[in-house]
């Protein structure tokens, strides 16, 4: 509807905006939830609207509406300008955007099997089969299966000449078995992930084929001994390492957070610009990139929500902090151009700096199994269960669903309630092995919270598994 976007831009500029952009977005979502054999909820939702963002007197304003009319475009543009003028009454630094040529083009997520074209009946059948496989295991308490699909059609236009159209499709699924005995409850899940693509991604998970294993492992956890407190070597399976990357690298590399714009909510970052290029973040084995171009990632797109083309940006190279996730506003402050990380959760939210796909690159040499075989004593931890990190992203603590003792290169005793904790740069500095590409997996995190009002981000993380020395495990009183 170019008439609407053109009108919003024209009105904003006529009313005094020195820059304006408008995003018109339609989002379709389908979700299916199954609990213990019962279809608990199936829903289909559509939401459509547009948001106008303006710069007036060096200050931002934004207004969004679900009413797709030219008159409403005028009204929202005027409202955004009025809001920006109010912002300017408490402004100490005028916003400056990086200079770049206009973006033009289209992008579409490659999809083999359209998740919205496939019948609900078929999808429910697949999910019920996975649920039934879990419930075949004697003693299991309750089970859950969840499936989500989302497609967004969005048009971005700006007063400096950009016009891009994108169609982005994401799917996600998880099966979960819970074993209960008195006050104890143990969860085992698979894979609790998501991807850009079609239903083929869900089919490849073989949820039904993994149901019995997942439920059996939940029952094993119920009788497993408590993970003992100790300092030891930890081997993180990709199913946990991705969350470590998310919390302790992805978030602290967001340059808006570094400059304090999230300080009142999610916090700030220890990765300050004075250490850019020199700060020792981790061991020399650590190479982490923000890659919005990798196929299948939840952070993959054609352009970000400021019209900046998808890029691969190094964040950590050989253990040193070398880059940030940036926007057109923040990048010039470190002498760079935007890395294309501005993303908005729908038509009614402003874009914020968000993770794209934050990937720990695999290293040739040792497979994940080689790393286990190379470990005399330690703990192998798999599948994230809980996460927490301080407001500068330093002190973290994670719990995983599974923890196995590793002794003499062999996987042995299973422990329940495993936890580990540390300080981010000390932890990454203790990494002495990163697995090769054979175990490399791209995970999707569809629930990354940020901003006020709250925004839910879809981000990706690639990981192959890694080993860390002298880590505190078994935290808390049990």
């Amino acid at each position, binding site marked *: 509807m170019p008439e609407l976007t053109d009108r919003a831009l024209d009105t904003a500029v006529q009313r005094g905006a020195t820059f304006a952009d408008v995003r018109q977005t339609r989002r379709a979502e389908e979700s299916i939830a199954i609990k213990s054999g019962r279809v608990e909820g199936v829903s289909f939702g559509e939401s459509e609207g547009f948001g106008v963002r303006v710069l007036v007197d060096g200050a931002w304003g934004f207004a969004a509406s*679900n009413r797709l009319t030219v008159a409403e475009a005028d009204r929202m543009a005027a409202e955004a300008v009025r809001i920006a003028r109010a*912002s300017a009454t408490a402004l100490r630094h005028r916003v400056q955007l990086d200079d770049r040529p206009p973006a033009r083009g289209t992008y579409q997520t490659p999809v083999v099997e359209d998740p919205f074209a496939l019948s609900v009946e078929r999808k429910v059948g697949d999910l019920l089969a996975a649920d039934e496989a879990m419930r075949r295991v004697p003693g299991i308490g309750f089970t859950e299966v969840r499936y989500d699909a989302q497609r967004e059609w969005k048009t971005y236009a700006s007063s400096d000449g950009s016009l891009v159209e994108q169609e982005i499709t994401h799917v996600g699924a998880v099966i979960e078995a819970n074993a209960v005995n008195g006050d104890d409850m143990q969860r085992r899940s698979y894979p609790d992930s998501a991807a850009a693509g079609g239903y083929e991604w869900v089919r490849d998970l073989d949820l039904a084929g993994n149901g019995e294993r997942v439920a059996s492992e939940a029952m094993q956890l119920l009788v497993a001994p408590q993970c003992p407190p100790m300092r030891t070597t930890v081997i993180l399976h990709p199913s946990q390492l991705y969350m470590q990357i998310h919390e302790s690298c992805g978030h602290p590399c967001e340059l808006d957070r570094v400059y304090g714009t999230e300080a009142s909510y999610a916090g700030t970052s220890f990765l300050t610009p004075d250490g850019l290029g020199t700060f020792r973040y981790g061991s020399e084995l650590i190479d982490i990139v923000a890659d919005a171009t990798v196929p299948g990632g939840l952070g993959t797109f054609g352009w970000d929500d400021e019209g900046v083309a998808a890029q691969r940006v190094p964040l950590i190279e050989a253990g040193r902090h070398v880059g940030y996730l940036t926007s057109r506003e923040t990048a010039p402050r470190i002498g760079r151009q935007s890395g294309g990380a501005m993303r908005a959760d729908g038509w009614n939210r402003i874009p914020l700096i968000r993770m794209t796909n934050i990937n720990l690159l695999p290293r040739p040499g040792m497979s994940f199994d080689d790393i286990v075989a190379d470990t005399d004593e330690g703990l192998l931890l798999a599948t994230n269960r809980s996460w*927490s990190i301080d407001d500068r992203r330093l002190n973290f603590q994670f719990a995983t669903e599974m923890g196995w003792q590793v002794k003499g290169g062999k996987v042995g005793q299973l422990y329940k309630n495993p936890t580990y904790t540390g300080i981010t740069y000390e932890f990454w500095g203790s990494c002495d092995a990163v697995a090769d590409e054979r175990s490399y997996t791209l995970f999707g995190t569809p629930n990354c919270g940020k901003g*006020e009002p709250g925004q839910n981000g879809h981000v990706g993380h690639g990981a192959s598994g890694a080993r860390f020395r002298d880590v505190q495990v078994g935290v808390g009183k049990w």
Partner: protein
Amino acid sequence: MVSERDPGSLELAERVLRHADALGATQAEVLVDQTESRLTRFANSEIHQNVAESNTMVNLRFVDGRRVGCASTNRTDDAALRRLAESAGRIARLMPEGDEDVHLPGPAPIAYVHGAAAVATAEATPELRAAAAREVIAAADASGVQAYGSFTTDLEHVALANSLGVRAQEARTWSQLITVAMGAAGEAGYAEAAAVDCTSIDAAAVGREAAEKARSAREPVSVPPGDYPVVLEPYAVVDLLDMLGYLGFSALAVQEGRSFFEPGKVIGSPLVTIVDDAEDLAGAPISFDYEGVPKQRVPLVEAGVCREAVYDAQTAARAGRRSTGHGLPAPNPYGPFPLNMIMSAGDASRDELVGGLDHGLLVTRFHYTNPVHPKLAIVTGMTRDGTFLVEHGRVVGPVRNLRFTQSYLDALAGVQAVGRERRLLRGFLGASLVPALRIGAFTFTGATEH
């Protein structure tokens, strides 16, 4: 007062009901949620984000015997509403037959509370919010720190209609000012105020509280992790209530066996009483839930003893009782939640709470808490924005932030004193009215660098 009646909303809901009926629904429920949300955000003592949103969501729950389909849209033209009914109906008819009857609530008289909405909040302008931000910033400037925070003014108009005759509608407003004041070395203090009526929020006072706390947090020292008696400010206590509400006070959690909650079970000290009461004007009053059921006052914990969980229509039917009015928009696999928790005040002043610590910590608030073991309510998180060492009943100075790994049930059991002042605060579950608490032992398991 903001008008509680918006004929357009209920008429919209009725139109969708007619579409559902024409498509053969055996029962149907329509929720129309109109929102006007505005938020002004500031950081580094300037406004950096400033947004407004106008939206109308229409949710349909279409029941066909024992099968249910749900659909939602924010298009309100008749063709879109017809498609909405067709989508929900198609989903329902593709479902396998369920093993239990579907129980939409029947009509019940709603005693509308007065005070769910305030015209000042509904009509709050960007200039009003900017003025509040400037007051906070001025307080920060006066203390030599910088201000970070946000000021929200929201209007929501909720309308509900179902095929059994439920008709309900209400305007609700909410405003909230949060502030972190931060000094050059990263020392920080927090303050927050929330109200139905935004004009009752004293922005300058919020700014001063945060700024003074930041000043008092300069040059923190390290203390070793371990067990400490603590005084938790209301900003921290709200997390206890939210987490317990999320993990345990829902009837669905009880029915699935994942809750700690059992009627008659002792989980707190005799000083602990928590109710969910949406009619209390000191909270954020509302009259009905998202199924159109009148809100009931539910005693969750009385003098440390579990009393009742909260129910929606479906969990109530399973238990052979009536909904307590705690349903959320369909589809809702997470079950009912208490959204208006109120913890009874005690008789201790803040000085008396702190004065009861011989060697302990005063904690302003928690950060990024997450359950480690849901059924034991073991939670980990960090302290933030003002943590202080208390010796012989006096605050002696700031300490670096600590990580805790603590059963929130054990924390409730360890409550030694309850503050007599309470604050209305918004956690992740809703608006809660909470006092400060003194707790005999709290387990800190790690430390950070600031």
